[in-house]
C-alpha cells in the first residue's frame, strides 16, 4: 500500500506541549517538510527564541542553540557568519521578534543575512499567560490590556512584514495563515520560498504566519480559527510583499 501521509523526517516523534487548537504544531510540520524537501536537516543549525517557540529544540530533529529573548537574529548572524555553508533557521514569536528583538531582526534583515525566519504572530504573549503583544489587535482584551487595546495608550498592532519588505537585504517577505486548507497550501509555498532565499544565498527570507492561541484568546479551536479570518486578516493582509530573484543586488 502506498503511504500518502506521514510525519516529516525532521520532526521528532514526541507529543508536543502545545495547547489544543494552537497552530504552532501545524507550522512546525510545514517547516519540517521544508527542511526535508531541501535536504538540509544535517546542515541546519536552529536559533531558538524565547516564548512558546523555544521548544523547537525538542521538536525539530536538528542542532539548535538557544538565544536570549529577541536576540536570535543576532545569534543566527554569529552562527551563519562563522559557518556560511550551514543552513540557519529562526523561529520567533511576536513578542520575541516584534517587541524586545526589533533591533536585532531589522539589522539582520538590513545586512542581508541569508537566514530563514519563521515569524509566528498570534497577537499575544502565549507562554507568559496572555499579555498584550505589539501585534495585539485594537480592542483585544489581554491580561495587560483588560479594557482592550487602545491606540492612544498602546499604539497600533505592528505590521512587521511590511516593514521588513522595505529593507534591501530582504529577499523574500510574505504573510500567510494556516486557518484553512487553501491558506495552508499558500503557507507551505511561502515557507519553501523563504528556505530558497537562503539556499540560493539571496538574502533574508521571512514568513509571518498568523496563528491562533485559543487558550489565551479564551476561545475554542474553531472560534480561534474563525477569528483569524474575521479579525486578523483584514488588518494583517496576506500576500507576498517582497520577492527578489537572483543575487545581483548584493
Amino acid at each position, binding site marked *: 500500500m502506498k503511504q500518502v501521509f506521514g510525519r516529516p523526517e525532521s520532526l521528532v516523534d514526541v507529543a508536543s506541549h502545545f495547547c489544543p487548537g494552537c497552530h504552532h504544531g501545524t507550522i512546525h510540520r510545514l517547516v519540517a517538510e521544508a527542511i526535508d524537501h531541501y535536504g538540509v536537516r544535517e546542515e541546519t543549525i536552529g536559533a531558538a527564541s524565547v516564548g512558546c517557540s523555544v521548544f523547537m529544540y525538542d521538536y525539530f530533529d536538528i542542532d539548535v*542553540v538557544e538565544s536570549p529573548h529577541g536576540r536570535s537574529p543576532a545569534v543566527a548572524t554569529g552562527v551563519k557568519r562563522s559557518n556560511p555553508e550551514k543552513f540557519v533557521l529562526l523561529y520567533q514569536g511576536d513578542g520575541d521578534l516584534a517587541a524586545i528583538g526589533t533591533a536585532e531582526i531589522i539589522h539582520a534583515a538590513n545586512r542581508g543575512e541569508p537566514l530563514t525566519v519563521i515569524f509566528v504572530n498570534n497577537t499575544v504573549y502565549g507562554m507568559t499567560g496572555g499579555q498584550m503583544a505589539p501585534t495585539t489587535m485594537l480592542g483585544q482584551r489581554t491580561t495587560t490590556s483588560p479594557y482592550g487595546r487602545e491606540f492612544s495608550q498602546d499604539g497600533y498592532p505592528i505590521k512587521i512584514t511590511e516593514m521588513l519588505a522595505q529593507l534591501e537585504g530582504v529577499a523574500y517577505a510574505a504573510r500567510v495563515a494556516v486557518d484553512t486548507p487553501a491558506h495552508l497550501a499558500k503557507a507551505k509555498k511561502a515557507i519553501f520560498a523563504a528556505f530558497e532565499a537562503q539556499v540560493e544565498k539571496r538574502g533574508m527570507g521571512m514568513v509571518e504566519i498568523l496563528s491562533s492561541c485559543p487558550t489565551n484568546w479564551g476561545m475554542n479551536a474553531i472560534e480561534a480559527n474563525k477569528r483569524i479570518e474575521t479579525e486578523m486578516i483584514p488588518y494583517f493582509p496576506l500576500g507576498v510583499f517582497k520577492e527578489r530573484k537572483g543575487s545581483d543586488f548584493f
Partner: protein
Amino acid sequence: MTKSFEKGNVAIAKAAVSAGCLYYFGYPITPQSDIPEYLSGVLPGLGGQFVQAESEVASINMLLGAGSTGKRAMTSSSSPGISLKQEGISYMAGSEIPGVIVNIQRSGPGLGGISASQGDYFQSTRGGGHGDYRTIVLAPATVQEMYDLTILAFDLSDKYRIPSMILADAMLGQMKEPLDEWKPELGIDYGHSEWILTGAKGRERRRVKSLYLGDGDLAEHNWRLAEKHKRIAENETRASVDIPEDAELVVTAFGSAARIARTAVDRAREEGHSVGMLRPITLWPFPAEEFVKVGEKGTPILAVELNTGQMVEDVEIAVKGASKVSFCGYPPGYLPSPDEIYEKIMEILKGEEN
C-alpha cells in the same frame, strides 16, 4: 625577533588573530575602538568576519552564536557597553559557550567619562548578569600581558567552556610598549567537542541551551557549573608575587593601578624598607591563597585601586582579619602618581595612618 611597539588595544587585537580568532562582533565605544578598527582591516583577508553590530546586545549574541559552533570569536567594549552585554554573558555561561569578551574600562556609573577606571571589578568577578555563575577574568598590567592573557583567555575559555573576560582600562588600552608577538599552538584538543553544533549529520541532534525545566535538572546544572568553577579555581589561579621574607607591608593592586603602585614600592625599597607586591592576574578566580600566606604572617596589606574599594573586599575575605588591610582608592577622572602611593606606604610603615 624585533619587538613591535604597540598600543595595548592593538596588542589584544593581534593576540586574537594569533589565537586563531577569525570572528569579531562589536560596536564602537571609546577607549577601545582601536580593537575593531584593527580587526576590520585584518580579518577579511584571513577569511574571517568582522561585523559591526547594531548594538552591544547584538554583538554579544553574535559571539554566542559563533561560539556555539566551536569557532573562536571575540567581542570588545568599554564599561557601559559591557553592561549591555551582561544578558548574553549570562546565557553563554548557562549554555557553557566559550568566547572572549574584552572590557577596556572607562568610568561610570552611567555615562561617566572616558578616563581610566577599575570600577567594573565587581561586575566582572561576580558574574555581572543574572544567575549563579562566574566568568574567568584576566587583568593584564602591561602591553605584553594584553597580548599574552588574550591568548590565555581563548585557551581557558575553550578548555572549560566558559566565557573569559579581559579586564583592562583606558590607560592600558592607549599606552604603547614593546611587544613580542609570539604564536601559540592552535587546535588543542580539550577532549570535549561533542557539544559543538555542526548540523546533525550522521549523529543525534545537539542542543546548546540553558533552559532546564525538569524536576531538579536546573539545580543539578548549577551544581555542575559550581564544580567547574572549583576546578578552574584550583588549576588556573594566577598572581605575580614579589614579597620579601621580612616584608613589613604588602601592597596589592591589579592592572594599571599595579603599575603605578610598583614604582611606589620600588622607591620605598630603594630607601631601605621591605615592602612586598602582590598583583592578582586572575581576578576570578581570585588568588586568595596568596593572601592567606600573607595573613599567616600577619603582614599588613595596602590595596590600591582606581575605584572606591572593590577588590579590597576579596582581600579582606581571604585574610579573614589575620592582617590589617588598608585601602587607597582613586575614583575616575584622576590618575594617582607613584608619589601619592609612596606617601601612603610611608604613613603605614610609620604607624601614622589615619
